């Protein structure tokens, strides 16, 4: 009998707020696969790549604190948001490669009785499934193959770029210009993966408030790309991409001059469907662009 896979789960903020379906489906999938997730209840927001624009050092300290709690549990940290993954992995990379910076951060952490050591790995749930659980094993557990669906993978920037950093964090090498992890997952679940130009491009989420037109055009282009490639639905490992693609179709349609809308699933929901989870276990009722095929 193999050892049970156990991770410290860094939920991030969206899974607790605007994408509750993401947290539900993460637990549903973990349950089906026998993976244990221990929630990092002490963790804070990672700063979402904006706090560091205001105060880079504060962002480092807060992210290092989050990692400390995975370290104290002696576990690999697993993230379920691309931006959490990037900010946390970037913090780890900077602290591990700069002893002087690490000392400065630890000086602050010591005030609350913590120390960043650099002992925990940090990986996104997508790569935990592929690297640790294995696509072959997932394939064996499929009860409802997704064979009737054309599925468009949308990778999300912060899981694939900068590739030098990303490829430090997971075993399966991913190339930012031709990523394949999500495609392979779709295939393992029996689905048909759809290729289109925007699959590794930006959804515009991070400029939504300050540059709404730019953000809407990017969302529109992503949805158009998937539609023109005959996708039935899209799938993404990032809840921020999901929010943009699922809820912003009106702004996007207006920006690109064409009605663009399609169901978008979280990576965990797609896995859950193939593993036989029920729609309510996967929170499919929490989507704005209705999931009309289940």
């Amino acid at each position, binding site marked *: 009998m193999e050892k049970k896979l156990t991770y410290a789960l860094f939920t991030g*903020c*969206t899974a*607790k*707020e*605007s*994408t*509750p379906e993401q947290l539900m489906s993460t637990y549903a999938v973990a349950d089906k696969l026998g993976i244990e997730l221990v929630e990092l*209840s*002490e*963790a*804070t*927001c990672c*700063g*979402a*790549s*904006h*706090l*560091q*624009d*205001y*105060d*880079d*050092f*504060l962002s480092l*300290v*807060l992210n290092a*604190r989050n990692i400390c709690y995975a370290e104290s549990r002696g576990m690999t940290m697993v993230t379920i948001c691309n931006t959490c993954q990037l900010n946390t992995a970037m913090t780890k990379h900077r602290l591990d490669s700069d002893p002087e910076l690490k000392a400065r951060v630890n000086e*602050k952490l010591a*005030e*609350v009785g*913590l120390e960043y050591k650099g002992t925990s790995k940090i990986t996104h749930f997508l790569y935990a499934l592929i690297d640790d659980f294995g696509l072959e094993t997932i394939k064996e557990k499929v009860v409802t193959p997704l064979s009737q669906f054309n599925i468009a993978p949308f990778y999300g*920037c*912060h899981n694939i*770029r900068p590739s030098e950093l990303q490829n430090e964090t997971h075993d399966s090498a991913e*190339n*930012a*210009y*031709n990523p394949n992890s999500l495609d392979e997952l779709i295939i393992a679940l029996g689905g048909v993966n759809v290729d289109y130009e925007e699959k590794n*491009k*930006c959804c*515009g*989420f*991070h*400029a939504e*408030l*300050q*540059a709404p*037109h*730019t*953000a809407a*055009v*990017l969302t529109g282009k992503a949805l158009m790309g998937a539609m023109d490639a005959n996708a039935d639905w899209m799938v993404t490992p990032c809840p921020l991409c999901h929010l943009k693609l699922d*809820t*912003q179709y*009106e*702004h996007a349609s207006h920006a690109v001059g064409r009605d663009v809308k399609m169901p978008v699933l979280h990576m965990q929901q797609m896995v859950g469907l193939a593993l036989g989870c029920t729609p309510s276990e996967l929170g499919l*009722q*929490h*989507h*704005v662009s209705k999931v009309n095929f289940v």
Partner: protein
Amino acid sequence: MTTITTQTITFNVFRFNSETDYLPYYKKVEMEVTSEEVVLDILNRIKWEVDGSFSYRRSCRHGICGACAIKVNGKGVLACKERMNDLIELFGTELTLEPLSIKRAVKDMIIDKEDFWVKHEAIEPYLISHIEEHPEMECAVTPAQAEALLDSDYCIQCGLCHYSCPVIEINDDFIGPAAFAKAYRFNADVRDNGIDERIDIINAPSAGVWDCVKCFECAEVCPKEVNPIEKITKLHNQIFEHGRAINNVATRHAVGFAHSIKKHGFLDEAELVRYSEGTLPMLMKHGKVGFKMFKVGKVVMPWNMPKSDKLDEVKALIKSSSTVKF
């Protein structure tokens, strides 16, 4: 010694002459490619062996002049540096050769880089220094001070990051990653006195750093490892450190994270939008989407906001580790 291998590759070559063609077209060229060749070898062979009218820029063939940047299957490359074998491994045996920006194509791989240079010039890419006319000692830069440029001086102005940036394609005002990295290069130079001037340029709404979508395309594509987005973050920091932040939606969006984390540990999503936009603009701009989200259970009410455990720790760290004020 490694043996040289050969593969048959099909190239779809972008062809366009702005003086005679109404539309561009793609010409199929099949070629035996050896494992020793780089993309520039292929461009040369297309011109020398297939069609003498094929046009592209090249000069140093040493990855330093920045002239030969093009795109292969959408990936920006310096033609003289990119090995064919790596591209074949990545994309297979059918490769599309295109100019950096199709809408700026003049002839085949040659583009009009005017917007790149206009934006480069806009950030005042030179030392602005109040130097005494008759100095008594040299203006020395220590190795540590030179390190602070973080390799931003390695930029060869090839345009790869500029024409891989999705914002450049949408927003004509946006200054872009290459010019931002250059602005940082001079702002970080101890001999320079133009930092406030330059901050005001890169702080402008629409043109400035706030419109960056944080996709990291610039960091990924740069052949000299300049890492433009790292410099964009540094420029954001300089705006606050020099007290030149304008109170607008973009700055409040960044600052709002600190407020939220202090209060909840987590980000209060609805409150961040309200704080950034203001109550009325929030309702006008986001009310409709917000209501749709509310109907499907995507909006957490204030009384249900999740809170991180050990919030006292977080508050203490924010107090002790904050380095700027807004």
